[in-house]
């Protein structure tokens, strides 16, 4: 274990560790992956793994949650993205190869990828 030689080092260490702890604190982004039998059969496990890798690579803090079937099995894997103050967007047929583009457009550029959208939910 490296020594923490100064107060500044302590601060740097704390910031490095922050990401690892983010699951237990508030983030403003929740990504929800449909993990019913239908979702799993369509490759949702793989999609979720890709999302986790992409978030890590791009250093984005977000909570990744799983949910059961919501009934739109033909469009699985379904991925919802909800950010504070914005409507919740549901995307359909998100396979592993679509994940990098989705993360890039929605989370980094802040643009909804309209062609993949299956629904929007405005929170009241």
């Amino acid at each position, binding site marked *: 274990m490296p020594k923490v030689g100064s*107060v500044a080092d*302590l601060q740097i*260490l704390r910031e490095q560790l922050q990401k*690892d702890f983010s699951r237990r604190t508030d983030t403003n982004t929740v990504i929800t992956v449909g993990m019913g039998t239908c979702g*799993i059969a369509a490759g949702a496990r793989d999609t979720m793994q890709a999302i986790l890798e992409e978030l890590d690579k791009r250093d984005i803090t977000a909570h990744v949650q*799983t949910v059961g079937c919501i009934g739109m099995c033909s469009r699985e894997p379904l991925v919802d993205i909800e950010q504070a103050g914005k409507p919740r967007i549901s995307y359909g047929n998100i396979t592993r190869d679509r994940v990098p583009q989705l993360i890039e457009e929605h989370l980094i550029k802040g643009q909804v990828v309209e062609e993949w959208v299956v629904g929007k939910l405005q929170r009241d």
Partner: protein
Amino acid sequence: MAEPVYRADVLVCTGTSCVSSGSVSVLDALHAELAKQGLEDEVRVIETGCRGFCAMGPVLIIYPDDIFYCQVKPEDIPTLVEETLLKGRVVERLVYQEPETHEAVPFYDDIPFYEKQNRIMLRNCGLIDPEMIDEYIVRGGYRGLAKALTEMTPETVVADVKASGLRGRGGAGFLTGLKWQFAQAAPGDVKYVVCNADEGDPGAFMDRSILEGDPHSVVEGMTVCGYAIGAHEGYVYCRAEYPLAIKRLKLAIKQAEEYGLLGDDILGTGFSFHLQVKEGAGAFVCGEETALIASIEGRRGEPRPRPPFPAVAGLWGKPTNNNNVKSYCVIAQIIEKGPDWFRGIGTEGSPGTAVFALTGKVRHTGLVEVPMGITVREIIYDIGGGIPDGKKFKAVQTGGPLGGCISEENLDLQVDFDSLRQAGAVMGSGGMIVVDEDTCMVEFCKYFLTFAVAESCGKCVPCRVGGRRMLEILTRITEGNGELEDIPKLEEIAAGMQSGALCALGQLTPGPVLSALRFFREEFEAHITDKRCAALQCESLISYYVNPAACKACGKCRKACPVQCITGDRKMIHIINQDECIKCGTCYSVCPFDAITKVSGQEFAVPTELIPVGSWQA
């Protein structure tokens, strides 16, 4: 290999309470199931310290969803993993249910047990892995120490602690800052910091939970104290009966040393502080500071008269500051957030929070932290969930065997050091034992007195002899041989002990008896004059009868009676022979018709010879 990217954390409580309710086998099952489902690289399992909700253990929390599961068994794990971790659904049967409405409360933040609490000292307990210094650091750990060492002088540290109004959480409530000031002002190059973790009250586990759940907070607080008073060495005196606390504390010390947050040249500031753990052999008197110091030195754990106080001549005759675990664990936050922050919580005379180990006849036993000034009623009913089985509240004992009780009329008393003292109880270290109408107050006092008498070190006469005499009188009363003069006699001995005993153990031993006499005097008198124990607990004063109107002559009691003192026959009302009955209560518990009646101090009409069922007329 790179650390896997996790999407969820499962926090499993591995505090002593949850371990005893089976959290280790739950943990094993969880690891096995995650491996089976291929989730090891997605879901991280973290072992935490006590979450406080011990009545509901083993408890488990899933982040980021904030789902709180309680009383989890290993066989629940496959369902839990599949439903919650794979499919994101809440397993309803494992979530906490409102005892009244049976309504399920899946989310941690909504549980009433936690709603009224304000967790400052316990802020990390159950939230972080106590064996990982990194988790403590992420939660702001060692920031207080860094601030003290780089931005403050020892004088300003002491001034801040004093200004915060923090009072010693060991029970006496002495101003911590003032204590530090004395140690700081005492001349000498060698000084010591001592932490009293010799928690010995029956039913108390506040200090243990902090050491198990957040050991670094104590390490950090003691280091700040060392800087403030000019000490470079410290000891944590922890009883050997707390193996998990000792293990985690030692690990915390090791990790802090590796990071350079403890030891030589802390954070490059040149300040050095070394910490050691001293395991105590579990003598109750060693919680008294001078006895504790004697024990660290390797001498017999006996108190000595003060002054000189330890701040002047303590460990090995050097100036020593001694505080309780709970006092040290809040120091870093006071330094970091400032004394006004601490003053903003609690009451004027007792700022901050109080940690109570809530036990006894209350639905949600466990560890609670509340702002000072909350009422006893709120603690017992809102947080504790009230008295189980529809029974009536009778009293609550605070301060353990050296404390006192509070009766129903004082339920709306605001809890702080001064108000409790005025009511005849004491804050103590934080034990809170609730009793219901089925508890005999004489017997209750006898229990605490038995403990205190056994733990008296025997050095001074008032404690050694006085306690024993009081116990003899109480025993006599519970056996039906009490006399009316016994009550003033108890009070006289108590006054002698309070004024004459050498240390707090002897001075406070009569406390429970005196406070019980204050609120429940008529109960003592009923034992003496009517030979009646209203709670039906004192064996010598109760009798068992078969209620002839309810007996169905099933014969169960007759077969179960270990001394064959019940006579009866087919379709004949059974009779207990009072001369031979040993009052074991077996018949009472086996009777399917509740026909066995327990009475005290009164006659119960029963037939004198066998008569047929249904023919009884009173």
